[in-house]
């Protein structure tokens, strides 16, 4: 077994783990975390494809590598936005849940009229 195959199988397992976590965990913040774990596995699969495309003078195909670098940055910006949304949800309802029947916080201190 080569190192690429080994890390490829590891990446496949990471995608499964991240998917499982993002479905099963009820807390939105933990779902975001699991989704990032899933993303790490997908990026690693790209890395394996890049490594298999190694040519003379290059350890790995540069195009998938560049896509992964772009992907990591975009994944971070999406994560930051999602986390900000969850925190705002917590601020307005004092809960952070995706349950549709969660009671809203009684209006008053801190709750914005425009929210």
């Amino acid at each position, binding site marked *: 077994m080569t190192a690429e195959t080994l890390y490829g199988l590891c990446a496949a397992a990471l995608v499964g*783990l991240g998917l499982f976590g993002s479905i099963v965990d009820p807390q939105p913040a933990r779902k975001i975390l699991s989704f990032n774990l899933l993303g790490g596995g997908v990026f690693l699969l790209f890395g394996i494809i890049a490594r298999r495309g190694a*040519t003379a003078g290059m350890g790995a195909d540069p195009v998938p590598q560049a896509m992964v670098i772009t992907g990591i940055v975009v994944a971070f910006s999406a994560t930051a936005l999602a986390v900000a949304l969850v925190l705002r949800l*917590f601020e307005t309802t004092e809960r952070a849940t995706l349950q549709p029947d969660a009671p809203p916080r009684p209006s008053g201190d801190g709750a914005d009229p425009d929210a």
Partner: protein
Amino acid sequence: MTVDLALDAGLAALVLAVAVWTIAARAAFAAVVGFVTYGLLLALVWVRIAAVDVALTEAAIGSGVTGAVLIAAAARLRPTETLSAAERPGRGLRIAAGVLSALVSAGLAVLVLYPSNPAPSLGPAAAVHLAALDIGNPVTAVLIAYRAVDTLLEKVVLLLALLGVWSLAPDRFWGGAPGQRRDARDGTLTLLARLLPPLGIVVGVYVLWVGAVAPGGAFQGGAILAAMWILVMIAGLHDAPEISRRWVRFLLVVGPAVFLAVGFTGFVVANGFLSYPAGFAKPLIIAVEVVLTLTIAVILGLLAAGPPERERRQ
């Protein structure tokens, strides 16, 4: 089994173990610590598969800055954790999710075990024009020259994400500073926030500069600079700026604006949008990378700081 393969097997097992811990950990804070460790181990994996550029980005952004955002969120959301535990899905859904995830993993594993042969590669195509661009690092060439449109659009995505985060602020805080003011206390964090930034800034600028010929570049350098800024803000040594400040707005748009200007100049002096004139490719690429690094550092830092939570002072 060779020593190298044993090392790889150990690293892969460690990554998987930390990933399982991250998913299974009871407390959200522990899970985030697991996630940061996972990111750093993944960076080692990237080095092992000869993708040092990606390793730098993963360590700085995927693990470092994302970790900072998630840790801050976990600390704030701690009161909701016990409530959420009651919402755990039933056994049936958990088994179904497990089967689905295992199927996805198995499908990907089959792709890994039976890949297409010979492996497709754009490496030779990327190598052809490296000499004309005077760039030694093919990954930088792909990011800033061959696929420059992707990089440009990605800056726009970053800006949109920041606008999205800002727009979550209540109206009365618009234009104010993000987060609550922290007071500097004497401690390990303050000491680190004083010691590390001078080194970190040098490393960040070096990584940016060396990106033309070796692993490094605008993303990696910008992320390191942002990490230093975030460290100083978390330690309370310097307050986050109000988002209505002119210099903040200027730094946010200068990178994409210069990139766009260079892109449109390509219509006049070269073959079209985002193409560089012969002989001037390298200085133009370096100039674009310098301003992009500044913009990336400011956007990443402000994304980590979150929406404004204080009223505007003036």
